[in-house]
């Protein structure tokens, strides 16, 4: 007991310190340790989530890059095919147009030739007719003074016959 008095040990003070410490433990646990632990857990969860998101984003980026490369490659192939098709179409169109023009030109030339031939023939006929008429008039004029009317008529007829023969030949 002497020792207890020397150190000032008293049951009431001892009990006070025990109860006091338990109360402080409860206060610290409820208001400090648990909230901080919750924050740790929440932070850890967010970090994990962020890491996962970053990983997913990385994978998505890699996939997007692959997809982009694939699309570009496909587009390149399509473009090449399109260019080749276009070239072929242009070539065909050019060929077709050329052929068409050629045909039309031939047709026009043929028409022109025919028309020219017809014109020529018409002109020839007209010229022949005119020459006959002129020859008739000339002969009539020349022979009117030298021959009688019968003789004139015979000569005219004969001349006309000759002319007609010449024309038909």
């Amino acid at each position: 007991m002497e020792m207890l008095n020397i150190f000032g040990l008293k049951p009431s003070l001892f009990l006070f310190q025990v109860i006091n410490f338990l109360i402080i433990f409860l206060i610290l646990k409820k208001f400090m340790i648990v909230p901080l632990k919750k924050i740790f857990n929440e932070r850890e969860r967010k970090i994990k989530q962020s890491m996962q998101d970053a990983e997913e984003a990385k994978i998505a980026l890699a996939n997007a890059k692959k997809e982009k490369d694939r699309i570009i490659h496909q587009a390149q192939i399509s473009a090449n095919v399109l260019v080749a098709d276009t070239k072929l179409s242009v070539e065909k169109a050019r060929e077709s147009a050329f052929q068409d023009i050629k045909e039309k030109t031939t047709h026009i030339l043929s028409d022109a030739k025919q028309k020219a031939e017809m014109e020529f023939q018409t002109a020839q006929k007209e010229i022949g007719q005119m020459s006959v008429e002129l020859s008739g008039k000339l002969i009539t004029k020349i022979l009117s003074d030298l021959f009688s009317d019968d003789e004139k008529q015979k000569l005219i007829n004969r001349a006309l016959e000759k002319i007609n023969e010449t024309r038909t030949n």
Partner: protein
Amino acid sequence: MCRLLDYSKGLGFMTISPDVLFSVAGFPVTNTVVSTVFVDVILAFVAFFVSKTASLKPTRFQNVLEIIVDYFHSTTSEIAGKKVDFIYPWVLTFFLFILISNFIGELPGFEEAFTVSTKNSQEVSLFRTVASDLNFTLAIAVISVVLAMLKSIKYIGIKGYISRFISFKMFPIFLFVGTLEFINEFTKVVGLSFRLFGNMFAGSSVIETVYHSIAFLIVPVPFVALELMIAVIQAMVFAMLTMAFMHIMTENADH
């Protein structure tokens, strides 16, 4: 009342037992009780402040607390494994309470600045380092050992717990070992309480002596620095020993 240092008038004189300031319904209110309440207020304020302001984006203050909490959580987790959630709040509370009370005790003028007159017209300090009162150190040592004991009983059962002390296997070797174990339960309490009490009481005595005898401003600084270091070490030692006891007492159940 035993006076440890009683050089002369004007020099430091610190009693081993805390000074009783007044009594309330038979309960002696000592200067360590007042200091304990002061520490309680600080810790409670910190706890309420944290609960109100804690956020995912921590302030500097929250950062410091998080470092301490996380350190004890990870250390306990490394040592105690799955039992961490039970052990570390206790260990942390021991550490914070002892640390804050020790730090406050080392504040310049903490014990000297405020004095009150007792019924015997004696001038005594209003505050005193909490851990320099054996009632406090013994109380937390008992709590530490009893907690370890309860945890052990929870893990291995009351029968298993008693068999740690009383066993007739390989008679009389295990009975002797059990007796030593039983004595060890008491030496734990004595060791924990007197280590902390001795260190803090000696530190407070040194500081007070320095202030009263060769005092002023610069001379006590190295002593205060040394005491601050001891304050941290003692808080750490108590917390770590508690952790080790709790772990060891429950670890045996696993084998």
